[in-house]
């Protein structure tokens, strides 16, 4: 029996276990939307702007471990996805993006709503396809899912011309995927593993350094065993927060530009750095030549191209983190490292995270309280980009993997709220809190409509300082306090804004209101904006200045912001 390309597409998505698709319809995807309507297994979530669809698919993927799926029409529908695709690419998130395209005979003629999306997304997707023949469609979808979720995950785009999705053909259950040019390495080289174990056993001042790869690999348990066996302190990147409980005595929190002071000092002093699923990004290393200058470096990563890209390593080890750890752990000796751990404790005491204790409402305080109130619940926190993102990373204290969603690599403002929508849809019974700033929130605040339409009781913790505060901070330090174009007067009244969507709005202006109002909002089963009115003169400390080493941080000075 002949079916249309659109029906084949939907059937293959169902075969891949897809239950949610985020999207926005249009002319070129009419046949696909028609077939989608008939699907009993797949739920479609209509967003307000296509960028939110990719961010939502990303939030869904990050919290469930499945591949996120989104869909848009041709032309402007597809170009609106670009930032979202680049965001997922930089953070290695498995997302499959389906775009409509004009009919094959119109491609290349500057037709209405036509754009070369495969050309445009070439630098920012793991791979992409333009389906020219309906007979290839099912195979291509299966390949797309395979590529998206295996090896180093990433976004894969499939461009489907309108005539292909309307064309009739016979549907065959697609075969398993076999790509000649794509065979990721999972198992580590046995000799290298042995060598790695030796280095770890010999080290006097080891530090374990975990990144997003540990989460993608689902290796949190193995990581914990490693840390406890070696008694080594552990630090993580922004994207890996939660992969090791930050409440554990060996946790150093996050490392890098705005990492904890003690993480930065400890890494600078260590003699062995065990990097697991990290890529030594410039936010983490500071000036590369000054990064962990005394340490031998072990780099375990599934992507061989990352090894040696930014930092020279002594022991490269290509493979999947979990698979390698399983081989490595039996060879690692139990150690106590008393002297080193004592040193680490001393550094932690001497250089804790600090912020001003005066009367004003402090965002750091709010984050701390949020952490206390939610950490033991089944919670997902998303953030946007800016000061609030850094404070969340510093003060929340994550304890479980897949609970911290943020745009780490690309630093995309507007990520947090749509990602929270995706996370909530993938995890109906979890508490989802989107921490954001007034700048970031305004980028996709229209998605309140999406949240309301789908009854999602997401909480938006909005730090409102009427300012693009992180840019202002940079201007404070690097531009002699010339605050250029960072002032956001003209912001709406966020409480009234929430109400015109039928959502709730709660405002916090004083420190003592924090806990009771947070509790009220977190328990009210409604989409809620919790607005915290804070000062635009707050700074994120510590801060590693440009071209400086991690141990050359600017610290919070007492008395700097007295009288507020």
């Amino acid at each position, binding site marked *: 029996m002949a079916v249309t390309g659109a029906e084949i597409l939907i059937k293959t998505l169902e075969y891949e276990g897809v239950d949610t698709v985020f999207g926005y319809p249009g002319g070129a995807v009419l046949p696909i939307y028609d077939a989608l309507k008939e699907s009993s297994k797949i739920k479609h979530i209509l967003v307000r702007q296509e960028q939110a669809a990719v961010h939502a698919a990303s939030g869904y993927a990050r919290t469930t471990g499945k591949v996120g799926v989104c869909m848009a029409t041709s032309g402007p529908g597809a170009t609106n996805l670009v930032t979202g695709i680049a965001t997922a690419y930089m953070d290695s998130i498995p997302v499959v993006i389906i775009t409509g395209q004009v009919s094959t005979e119109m491609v290349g003629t500057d037709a209405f709503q036509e754009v070369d999306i*495969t*050309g445009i997304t*070439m*630098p920012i997707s793991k*791979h992409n396809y*333009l389906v020219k023949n309906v007979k290839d469609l099912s195979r291509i979808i299966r390949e797309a899912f395979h*590529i998206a979720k295996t090896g180093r995950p990433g976004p894969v785009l499939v461009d489907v011309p309108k005539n292909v999705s309307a064309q009739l053909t016979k549907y065959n259950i697609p075969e398993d995927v076999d*790509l*000649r*040019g*794509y065979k990721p390495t999972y198992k580590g080289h046995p000799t290298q593993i042995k060598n790695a174990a030796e280095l770890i056993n010999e080290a006097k001042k080891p530090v374990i350094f975990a990144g997003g790869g540990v989460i993608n690999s689902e290796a949190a348990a193995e990581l914990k065993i490693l840390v406890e066996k070696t008694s080594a302190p552990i630090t993580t990147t922004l994207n890996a927060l939660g992969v090791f409980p930050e409440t554990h005595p060996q946790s150093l929190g996050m490392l890098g530009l705005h990492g904890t002071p003690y993480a930065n000092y400890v890494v600078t002093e260590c003699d062995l750095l065990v990097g697991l699923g990290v890529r030594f990004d410039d936010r983490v290393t500071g000036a590369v030549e000054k990064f962990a200058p005394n340490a031998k470096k072990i780099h375990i990563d599934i*992507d*061989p*191209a990352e090894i*040696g*890209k930014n930092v020279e390593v002594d022991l490269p080890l290509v493979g999947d983190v979990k698979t390698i750890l399983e081989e490595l752990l039996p060879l690692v000796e139990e150690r106590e490292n008393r002297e080193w751990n004592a040193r680490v404790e001393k550094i932690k005491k001497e250089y804790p995270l600090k912020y001003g204790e005066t009367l004003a409402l402090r965002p750091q305080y709010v984050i701390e309280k949020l952490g206390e109130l939610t950490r033991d619940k089944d919670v997902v926190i998303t953030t946007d980009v800016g000061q609030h993102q850094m404070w969340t990373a510093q003060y929340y204290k994550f304890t479980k993997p897949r609970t911290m969603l943020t745009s780490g690599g690309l630093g995309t403002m507007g990520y947090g709220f749509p990602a929270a929508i995706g996370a909530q849809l993938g995890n109906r019974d979890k508490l989802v809190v989107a921490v954001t700033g007034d700048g970031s929130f305004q980028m996709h605040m229209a998605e309140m409509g999406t949240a309301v339409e789908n009854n999602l009781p997401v909480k938006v913790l909005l730090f409102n300082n009427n300012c693009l505060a992180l840019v202002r901070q940079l201007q404070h330090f690097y531009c002699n306090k010339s605050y250029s174009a960072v002032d956001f007067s003209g912001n709406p009244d966020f409480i009234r804004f929430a109400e015109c969507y039928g959502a709730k709005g709660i405002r916090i202006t004083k420190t003592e209101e924090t806990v009771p109002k947070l509790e009220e909002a977190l328990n009210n089963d409604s989409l809620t904006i919790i607005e915290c009115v804070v000062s635009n003169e707050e700074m994120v400390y510590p801060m590693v200045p440009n071209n400086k080493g991690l141990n050359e941080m600017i610290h919070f000075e007492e008395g700097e912001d007295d009288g507020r």
Partner: protein
Amino acid sequence: MKHTLSVLVENKPGVLTRVAGLFARRGYNIDSLAVGRTENPEISRMTIVVEGDDRVIEQVTKQLHKLIEVIKINDITEDEHVHRELILIKVNADPAHRMEIMQIVNVFRARVVDFGRNSLIIEVTGDEGKINAIENSLHPFGIREVVRTGKVAMVRGPKHKNGKS
């Protein structure tokens, strides 16, 4: 230092764009690029000459490997390999100088493929050294136009570099 990479890719439309886009994005310098079918019509071979030190070449190779359609990459710079390039040179050749030019053509075992009133087109195949040498030798006469194919290369000996041993 120049490295010669022999890259096997699936013969699909857009592969060349992906490779070129990758090089542009990562900032690698392509000296020359030649591509054509192999004995297997589904597979093409690209011979890419890249400028860079060992670390750059290592990154280039690893990033290329991430492209789905790239099957195998060999850095054959150090291997014993046969490499050839073809060049067509249109040179001024008025009757007074024609003899001299013909002598150069013979010395290099090149061929004349077009006779004009005041010019000749000379075709030469050879390794980079030979190509450069004949171009230099013809320079004094006035070169009107040059087109080069870029280098192609094959490793000496019985080993195949096409994924089979």
